[in-house]
């Protein structure tokens, strides 16, 4: 029988809600800066989800205390190590996207995606 964890999984639910906020920001807004912000909110949702998957109630952070290396005393160190990769990639992608948006703004004088697409219509090179 399948168990439903409606109220125990509140951290994961928060992550899903954050992810949806970011995703709908990405879809609804035509402003490129707001799209980048939505992308960043999605990233944080993923980090929250991964960190929550590593947590085990009542256990210590995976920094060994002298004389105790029993695995049942510490939380899972693997998701914490994986989140780091995600954060680095998120920072890099954000910096690159912001630089691209800055160049687009310099060229077309607007951040609105439709306006930029309209202005690029006549360009052939």
């Amino acid at each position, binding site marked *: 029988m*399948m*168990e*439903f*964890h*409606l109220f*125990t*999984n*509140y*951290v*994961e*639910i928060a992550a*899903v*809600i954050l*992810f*949806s906020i970011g*995703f*709908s920001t990405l*879809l*609804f807004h035509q402003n490129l800066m707001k799209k980048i912000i939505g992308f960043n909110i999605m990233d944080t949702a993923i980090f929250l989800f991964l960190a*929550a*998957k*590593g*947590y*085990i*109630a009542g*256990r210590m*952070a*995976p*920094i*060994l205390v*002298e004389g105790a*290396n*029993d*695995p*049942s005393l*510490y939380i*899972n*160190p*693997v*998701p*914490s*190590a994986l989140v*780091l*990769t995600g*954060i*680095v*990639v998120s*920072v*890099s*992608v954000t*910096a*690159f996207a*912001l*630089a*691209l948006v*800055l*160049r687009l703004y*310099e060229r077309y004088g607007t951040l609105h995606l439709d306006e930029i697409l309209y202005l690029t*219509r*006549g360009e052939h090179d």
Partner: protein
Amino acid sequence: MELNPVEIRLLRRFRKMYMVTAFLVSLAMTAVLLLTVFNLPAFGKAGNPAENEVIGRYIEKGLEETGAVNIVAAVILDYRAFDTLGETLVLFTALVAVLMLLKDEAGVFNRRYRERSKFEPEKDQIFRSVAGMLIPCLLVFSIYIIVNGHLSAGGGFAGGAILGATLVLYNIAYGLEKARGFINEKNFLRFITAALLFYSVVKGYSFFTGGNHLPSVIPLGFPGSIFSGGLILPLNITVGIVVACVVYGAFCLFNRGGL
């Protein structure tokens, strides 16, 4: 090219359809994800499928194999050190891309900067004195975090971000000319490439030992002291240098289009 009325009407209709579809898509995705979360194992319970023999292996053998008390540092800088090399290279590549896009050859940024420079905080005496008090403490704190990466929470990425933020604060408070005294474009690129080269050379030895880089040549030291954990301390320092340089370099490029 002006749009004619028919095109405008079509575009309006497309826009309306797009909004409705986007709303439905995000609603459907949220519903699917929430359903998945309800079926996941309970939060924070021991014995979930995520808790398997991998954790046991890392926690039981991590200290004797790597010499690091912090198991996360042991995972990212010893067991999976090549992955961290990839991460620092991703940061470096992002910085190079930003450098290519924003490098200010024509001096447009500089002209714009001079126009608004009378509103810059570097003319502000209160901000300057507070920054003067904060910067030494922040420097010591960031170095503490980087050097204690294998003993406590933190490490090269966290400490490097704080170090980069300190450099940014110095740049804002005292101006670019003064910051150029110790970090300009030339030695900036030297720092970052030297750190990356050091990392790849130091970790590349496992290609010559048959791909097995766990038995370390360096003595692991007494667990809990600063000089323990083999290569983790120097690698934390190199990662910290790269992260600090990337944070500071990105700030300078976005602010004035050059270091």
